[in-house]
């Protein structure tokens, strides 16, 4: 990045643009979450299982987000890593009603954290304990414990319970992420 770019960034003259990566098991609600962030007219009415990935754009508090919404199916999870390097934030969506697969979630999270392109970077991770509306859903505290989030010491992280169908909890989460990214940029 040239000096001029850095300067304009520091002065906040240029709009901030960031890339975030959206991961999590299939059916956890990633695409539904992202869809909710988009403006009314851009929103899709129907969400189908993602194959590969989709790029979506939305804005929050003057930050432009480019979200790589990855597919969570087993056979595509290996492909997430191709997109680690360029992302400045990670949104990790968990289906809090799917107790059975929490161990799988933990495995995938560990793989992510140990990846050379992620480990050692101060990259903020936002967890959504999604589908909180379902009766047997675990609380965000229980999810955090089950995933062992307390082990993450070198990265800012945050977990909030959400319902992607109504949008409940989503705003809180993304505001946290926006704040983190602003801080990171101005500390650069």
């Amino acid at each position: 990045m040239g000096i001029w770019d850095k300067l304009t960034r520091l002065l906040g003259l240029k709009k901030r643009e960031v890339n975030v990566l959206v991961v999590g098991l299939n059916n956890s609600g990633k695409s539904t979450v992202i869809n909710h962030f988009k403006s009314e007219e851009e929103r899709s009415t129907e969400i189908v299982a993602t194959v590969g990935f989709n790029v979506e754009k939305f804005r929050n508090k003057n930050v432009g987000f480019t979200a790589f919404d990855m597919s969570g199916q087993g056979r595509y999870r290996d492909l997430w890593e191709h997109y680690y390097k360029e992302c400045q934030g990670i949104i990790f969506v968990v289906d809090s009603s799917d107790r059975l697969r929490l161990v799988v979630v933990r495995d995938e999270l560990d793989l992510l954290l140990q990846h050379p392109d992620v480990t050692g970077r101060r990259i903020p991770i936002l967890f959504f304990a999604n589908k909180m509306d379902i009766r047997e859903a675990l609380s965000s505290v229980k999810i955090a414990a089950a995933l062992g989030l307390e082990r993450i010491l070198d990265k800012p992280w945050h977990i909030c319970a959400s319902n992607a169908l109504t949008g409940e909890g989503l705003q809180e989460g993304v505001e946290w992420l926006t704040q983190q990214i602003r801080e990171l940029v101005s500390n650069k």
Partner: protein
Amino acid sequence: MNAFKRDKKEEEEGGGNPFQNIEKTTVLQEARTFNDTPLNPRKCAHILTKILYLLNQGEQLGTMEATEAFFAMTKLFQSRDVVLRRMVYLGIKELSSIAEDVIIVTSSLTKDMTGKEDLYRAAAIRALCSITDVSMLQAIERYMKQAIVDRNPAVSSAALVSSLHLTKIAGDMVKRWVNEAQEAVNSDSVMVQYHALGVLYHIRKSDRLAVTKLVAKLTRNSLKSPYAVCMLIRIACKLLEEEDSNGNSSPDSPLFEFIESCLRHKSEMVIYEAAHAIVNLRRTTSRELAPAVSVLQLFCSSPKPTLRFAAVRTLNKVAMSHPAAVTACNLDLENLITDSNRSIATLAITTLLKTGAESSVDRLMKQIASFVSEISDEFKIVVVQAIRALCLKFPRKHSVLMNFLSAMLRDEGGLEYKASIADTIITIIEENPEAKETGLAHLCEFIEDCEHTSLAVRILHLLGREGPRTRQPFRYIRFIYNRVILENAPVRAAAVAAMAQFGATCPDLLPNVQVLLARCQMDTDDEVRDRATYYHSILEKQNKALSNHYIVEGLQVSVPSLERALHQYTLNPTETAFDIKSVPLAAVTPADENANKMAANAGGMLITPALPGSKAAVAAATANTVTREETYLEKLRAVPELANLSISLFHSSDPVELTESETEYVVRCVKHCFPEHLVLQFDCTNTLNDQLLENVHVQLEAPDGYHIVRSVPCARLPFNETGSTYIVLQYPDELPASVGTFSATLKFLVKDCDPATGQPDSDEGYDDEYMLEDVEVTLADQVQKVSKTNFGSAWEEAASTHSELEDTYSLSTMGTLEEAVRNIINFLGLQPAERSDKVPEGKSSHTLYLAGVFRGGHEVLVRAKLALAEGVTMQLTVRSTDPDVAELVTSTIG
């Protein structure tokens, strides 16, 4: 827009190709900027262009490189720049077959194909269909169906054409889109209608009745799109041809009526298609032909060059089958001889040549002579080819034509052109013994001043082969020796080899040849000196057998195999000497096949046939594809149970069908002959989509003496796949017992399964079997063809070294000598020598010479004297290094 303008200006200033100096590694390096944020769309599009340029120049990317570039490219989906996105689609298509995990872009492309941006939709469909595989297709089926009936014609066409491509991987699924395709046929867009018809036809083409119905319906409806009408004409033709070959053609078929009515269509394209169809249909009578030819005739004088070209090209093609009709256009064709478009002119002339009577040959040749110097080599070659056809048609005209060719030879011209002339002269010499001496004389004269080394080498080789057997061999020596004095090293080497042929075959020339060869031993070039020394010392021995083996016949083994065998030998040091018998023999390819291959190899360039040990020969042989045996051997080696078979696969047969066509299981058998073993390879195809076969093997009842060593089953045979099962047998000790009939049954375990997924319904299966046709093991399966350049001397020599058997047969079922010759060759599987497989017209007796090697390395030479008398009588003489083999040959005939 701006960018276009600038580029154009640069071009005018002679800026040249801006991509001339780009290099793969640099460009791939640059492609890493695709990962940058924020993106610079202009820059990225430029880099993508370079990648596409490189790929289209034939640059190869490795899987890793391609995958890395592909994933970098996927990040460009974050840009909303339309130009860049469309470049990305192109990039996806190009890399889809090389990179891994390309399905990663499935959702992104589906979004674009269903989105609001029309500029994306069609291109996204095409890209999507190139990355998708069968397992993904179900997920996009719904979108494809919608796209086919989309209101935007570009989208609809893209979906239809992509469906056509998809039939290759998922024919059954595309069949389910028939209703959508049906709807698209009614589209107002000419392209959509055309593409939709293509898809509909493809879906139904295996169902004759359905196609007939489709055509009947559409011919009544009068399609709007001329493209679609053209296609309909082609489909109708195909139906007509099928009717004819099934023997149920009706004289006034509505299909033919339809095609004929298209001669009056308002679109020229359709008119031409109809005329083209009619002249090419086998059933067309001369009455029906007339209107089509008049249309073509009319086109011949059209102001549009494309129409003139199409017309004359069509007439040229049917000149042989309908000479009378084409002659009717002679006047128009003669006008086209001077057409400013040289393609048209050349086609016109060659058409006239084809239809001309023997009497008009002289006049036409004069006419060509007047302009042949004005046309480019490419068209001159077309003319040469026409002359070649003419020579074969009118053998008596060979001197006029040969003179003409030699005049052409003397003119300026590139290698390809000169080679085609020399080739034609050589063909004439070979087909017509009377033309031989004149032909050789022309070639001698030509090499006096020939700037093409490869051609001079080839002609010298021919002189060496044919010269010694002419009436006055000494005449050629002077021409050949002149080359030694005047030419470059490769030509000198070839001249030395040619002289040695004279020395070996003509005893009275030997002293002179030896003197000349001795002089060549002082040559400055190593190869020339080596050859001279080699030939000189062999000839010095004056031993007929020696010179036959090492000068006249040369190397019989396949050179690439020899190279591999020698390499193998050097890797494992051993005490025993290298055995050349263990090297597979060079496959003898039929002459025309060879010519085709050469034409394909080097665009009509001549390649020198094997001079013993010459560099050119090695190059030619390695350029040739490996032998059939080599290819099979590789496959056999990959089967662990067969790996320890002897390394030398001696001969592999053509595949033999053991089932009728269109049965549940298709089985073909290839017989592989090893020195001591016979391996039967059964290639089985399962055509039932509701069955999975397991443990597929063949049960064989072998004739006495054969011993079954092992059977290798095929573990799994899913629907639509071909798998192989093998049986290894040991040949009987007694040779006569090796010829016999095996009865065979296919045995397997059936598991019923779901046709859609191919998954078995349960783990339980049941045994089943399927009767196959008998497998015959013949003499021909156990011999390899060998081509003898000089059969006479080999035969003579064998009189003292081989055992001989003779017998007389009456082949009462054969009506002609040709038939007898063909049958004997097929039956014995040996290679005819001295072109003795061609029976001169009008003769009542003929001698056929055959040569080959029996497994185990025993040479077999056969002379069959045939005479026509109430059937054909044959006196067969066999000379072989093994008396048992000779016995086998005489006993199996009869």
